């Protein structure tokens, strides 16, 4: 008999209450295994190496099980959605605490072989696609939050493109979260040679908890530009795990910008499973007040000839705490690996702190791997140079911080509209700097 961690009991109860016997058996089996795993693992503690810098107290102090039956929430304010959305031709899904808001979502004519919609709808109409999303990703492993998501998810989105299908307009998902606990499950499945651009925006109000798992599965030669913008409320908790598997010559270009949430974490686990696959991550955390953000990319080179590039930058003000836990793992035989990982941090004032741990784990010899990390403040000589040209100190600081952060946006291949969209958010954040 395994020992159930006491802090998991409210979640066990929530799981029991939510068991839906109409779900396909395979899913119910997965959910049962997942909740058992969670109940044994419990929440991570600072003794777990991967969580030693993360303060989970707010989450562990008071349980936040999902409400049951799910209370129906008012739709997000249409004006707000209007102000957040991407301009131009877009295929949009608005999720309110992971449930779809049909009135605010808008489709465009999708080509044959493309499917885009909510998880609930997928479960109803295309369980085969949903099953595929689960088949290609590992079970939750020793990861309590992923296990909890698997046990409790009710909403989220699924995008599936059949082999050879590409779509030129971006798929946009606006996730609105409120005071509730939400466990969205998302999946992006691109068949051989398919290509897509996905823009996700997490926003909301209140002191809710978002526990997201996103599965990305890229077939041979598939191409995905994936942008995530996180501007949740400053009281929210945002824990996200993205698990991507790349087949031969697939390319995954990921941009992740975190501005919001009191506590946020981006676990980005990428497996380069086919030769010549390529992964790029451009990430940024922009923190103030009491915020804490963790970026934890884990890139696994399983086969020869793959490349990966990670550039994650942090700008940390207030009393905020930034954490970078990056790992490049090169498995035996993964020769001609070319992997790079860089983390740069700006500490804006006293009282801020950063923990960075860029890790290399190499078990092949014919590799080119490097990592770098820096922590510092703004360059005094650059500040003086700008001031000597008549720019006041506060503007000069903003310009330098903006310049520091700009390349993570500019490097995204998601197109000019999205880049401008991200730049606007960065500018807004910069303007609010003290």
């Amino acid at each position, binding site marked *: 008999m395994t020992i159930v961690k006491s802090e998991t009991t409210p979640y066990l109860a929530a799981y029991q209450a939510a068991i839906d016997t109409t779900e396909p058996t395979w899913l119910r089996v997965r959910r049962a295994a997942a909740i058992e795993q969670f109940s044994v693992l419990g929440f991570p503690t600072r003794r777990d190496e991967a969580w030693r810098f993360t303060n989970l107290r707010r989450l562990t102090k008071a349980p936040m099980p999902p409400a049951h039956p799910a209370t129906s929430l008012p739709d997000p304010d249409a004006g707000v959605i209007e102000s957040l959305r991407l301009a131009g031709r877009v295929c949009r899904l608005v999720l309110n605490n992971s449930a779809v808001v049909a009135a605010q979502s808008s489709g465009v004519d999708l080509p044959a072989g493309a499917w885009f919609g909510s998880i609930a709808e997928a479960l109803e109409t295309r369980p085969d696609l949903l099953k595929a999303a689960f088949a290609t990703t590992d079970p939750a492993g020793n990861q309590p939050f992923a296990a909890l998501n698997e046990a409790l998810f009710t909403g989220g989105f699924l995008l599936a493109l059949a082999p050879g299908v590409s779509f030129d307009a971006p798929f946009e998902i606006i996730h609105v979260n409120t005071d509730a606990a939400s466990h969205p499950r998302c999946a992006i499945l691109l068949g051989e040679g398919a290509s897509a651009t996905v823009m996700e925006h997490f926003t909301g109000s209140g002191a809710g908890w978002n526990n997201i798992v996103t599965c990305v599965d890229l077939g041979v030669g598939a191409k995905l530009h994936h942008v995530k913008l996180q501007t949740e409320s400053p009281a929210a908790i945002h824990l996200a795990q993205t698990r991507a598997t790349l087949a031969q010559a697939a390319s995954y270009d990921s941009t992740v910008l975190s501005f919001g949430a009191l506590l946020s974490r981006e676990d980005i686990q990428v497996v380069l499973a086919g030769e010549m696959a390529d992964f790029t991550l451009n990430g940024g955390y922009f923190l103030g007040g009491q915020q804490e953000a963790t970026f934890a990319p884990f890139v696994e080179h399983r086969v020869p000839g793959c490349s990966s590039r990670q550039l994650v930058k942090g700008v940390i003000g207030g009393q905020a705490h930034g954490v970078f836990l990056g790992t490049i793992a090169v498995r035996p035989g993964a020769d001609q690996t070319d992997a790079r990982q860089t983390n740069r941090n700006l500490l804006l004032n006293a009282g801020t702190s950063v923990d960075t741990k860029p890790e290399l784990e190499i078990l092949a010899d014919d590799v080119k791997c490097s990592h770098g990390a820096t922590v510092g403040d703004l*360059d005094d*000589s*650059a500040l*003086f140079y*700008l001031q*000597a040209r008549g720019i006041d*100190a506060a503007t000069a600081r903003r310009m330098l911080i903006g*310049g520091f952060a700009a390349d993570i946006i500019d490097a995204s291949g998601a197109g000019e509209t999205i880049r401008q969209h991200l730049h606007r958010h960065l500018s807004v954040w910069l303007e609010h700097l003290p």
Partner: protein
Amino acid sequence: MTNLLEIHDLHARIVGGRDILKGINLTIKAGEVHAIMGPNGAGKSTLSSVLAGKPGYEVTLGHVLYQGHELASLGPDERARQGIFLAFQYPVEISGVNNMYFLRAALNAVRKQRGEAELDAAQFLKAVKAKLSLLDISEDLLKRAVNVGFSGGEKKRNEIFQMAMLEPALAILDETDSGLDIDALRAVANGVNRLRDPGRAIVMITHYQRLLDYIEPDFVHVLSDGKIVASGDKTLAMDLEERGYAHLASAA
């Protein structure tokens, strides 16, 4: 004509260090071109840093009047907006900040100070094009980040281009000739000469006489051990070229 800049018995140092400037006296009127020469360690760069208000330097005695007002209380950006321009010996590289964006922000800050309307993107571009012809600068440089990946000559030309855009009353050129080959030097000097103006004073700080072959000064001063030990016209510079600094330094 009123004095643009008056330096009275100026003593200054790097914060916490010993005095580097030990009593500078100098008066500069609009329209004049002054050359300040001297050996390494004489205090030339300290003088330009103190005039531009670089943090980390402090005035321990004496004062500087610019357009009749005490400079000491002004921050570096305020000085710049009031028309003091320092062409840096080592222009700073600022990655991620576009050169044009930077220049427009600077120009509008200066214009605002002068009570002029800010320029929108189109007006700014027009102004840029007009000044570009002054210097041999390719538009490509303007699209890049500030000084990033510029050659030594490109950086110095970019400094003069900024000066042309900002139209300062007092331009201080700190070792603008250093690290330039003869063609680049000529191009930079031509730019500066075109910016000579009855309303503008130029102070060239240099170790070598060769810059003065291209930009003819009205006055030459020799700085040694933190003091001006000799002043004269351009013949003084030629004299220095022949006899070196040593005899002047010992005379001090």
